[in-house]
């Protein structure tokens, strides 16, 4: 079932030298309900711009983004640099979205505590972001986006700053979160290994101006084995399609 349709999306910036730069052009794709979609592409292509448009942080120059049922849905966003608020503890960072929706305090407490437990953050509730390791900060950032129970979770290269081992752990956890919470995820990365490990489907973008170059469906069972032949073959296939 389709969830979201991106249609003829185009985004043009005016650069500092006053010339027009087209970041995204003729972008067309759909996202299925409860799908884990990874978007890969060369760095500097309009991946992040695309995600920001979907999140409503930027307006497209032309084109549309439509939900299948026509109504609005809650969207969670995980930023590349976490963007945790340094003056808030882990707990209060996670609670932000609920506070802003004017939810009563005891309800916030219930939801946040549940998520803290689930995300393995127990014992770190009162720590400030600077006191947490990179992996823990990432867990807080993901929790903050999840706490509003978004139907669509947007993730902008969230694991790029982590060491390989922590990244693998968090990828595994993210799959668990996704299987349990049943949301749709659009995950941007330039790491093909990461995309093959996580995604149901991978969209491969071209360099600027960005459009969809190819898509690869990955129907390997989870948890996936990075060393299996199938895994490696899909990796090869995707790599060959990246310019």
């Amino acid at each position: 079932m389709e969830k979201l349709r991106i249609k003829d999306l185009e985004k043009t910036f005016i650069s500092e030298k006053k010339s027009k730069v087209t970041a995204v052009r003729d972008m067309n794709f759909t996202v299925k309900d409860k799908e884990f979609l990874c978007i890969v592409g060369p760095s500097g292509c309009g991946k992040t711009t695309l995600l920001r448009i979907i999140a409503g942080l930027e307006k497209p120059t032309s084109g549309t983004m439509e939900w299948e049922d026509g109504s609005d849905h809650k969207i969670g966003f995980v930023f590349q640099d976490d963007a945790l608020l340094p003056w808030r503890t882990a707990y209060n960072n996670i609670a932000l979205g609920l506070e802003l929706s004017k939810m009563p305090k005891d309800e916030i407490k219930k939801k946040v505590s549940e998520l803290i437990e689930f995300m393995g953050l127990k014992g770190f509730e009162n720590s400030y972001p600077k006191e947490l390791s990179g992996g823990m900060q990432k867990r807080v950032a993901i929790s903050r986006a999840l706490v509003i129970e978004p139907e669509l979770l947007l993730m902008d290269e969230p694991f790029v700053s982590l060491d390989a081992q922590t990244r693998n752990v968090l990828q595994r956890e993210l799959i668990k979160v996704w299987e349990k919470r049943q949301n749709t995820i659009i995950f941007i990365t330039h790491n093909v290994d990461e995309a093959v490990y996580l995604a149901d489907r991978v969209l491969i973008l071209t360099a600027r101006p960005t459009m969809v170059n190819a898509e690869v469906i990955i129907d390997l069972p989870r948890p996936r084995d990075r060393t299996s032949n199938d895994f490696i073959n899909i990796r090869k296939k995707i790599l060959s399609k990246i310019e």
Partner: protein
Amino acid sequence: MNRKIIKLIVPICIVVGWELIAMSIDNPWKLPQLVKILSIVTHPNNSLLGTGTLIENTYYSLKRVVLGFGLACLIAIPLGVGMGWSKYLGDLFDYIVEVLRPIPPLAWIPLIMAWLGLGLRSAVMIIFLGAFFPILVNTIEGVKSISKSHIEVAKTFDASDYDIMRKIVIPHSSPYIVTGLRIGMGIAWMCLVAAEMMPGIAPSGLGYLIWQANTVGQISIIISGIIYIGIIGLLIDRSFKLIEKRYFSWREIKQ
């Protein structure tokens, strides 16, 4: 050696040296003995030179500072938030702030006296000018230094402008604002004492007491006044530092 002991060496030398020199000069009009000063400082309820007691004069001085400083807060913080947040407001006031800011507050005294006359209003105005710019500049700096992604976080939760102000802009800027308040208060306190020494501007306060003591050559009262000014300035500064430590510790934490 214990660091506390090292820190005490110079003050003790000064005290002992002072006392030795004072005894050998034996002229209280030039250098009074410390015991004499100490007896004035430790009896703050004694009336001095008909200007009232040390406590009373401290009270008058503090009252002026609180008024002028409060007024500066009321105007500088909202204006600073506005100038930091909106490019338009920032540009609108940019030149005038840049031109007025480097002028020493005391340079305004003749103008202020001409416009506001003698009395409380003038003293408050001088303090206001002293405190205003540090608060303004630090507030602008605080608001401007907000990371764009922190604002976008709030936007992804559909936060209103009011919520963004309340949940992001103000908490982020508070430590900067409090630093501005601390610096502003320090300057206000210095301006006050100088203002009180101006002829006719305010016949009370620690600055006035010092000036009166000067006209009659009472060095021990001058020094007592200076000690009070120093101690109160120190206490104010420490209070702000305590606030910074208590509420903004999240800035200091290192991984």
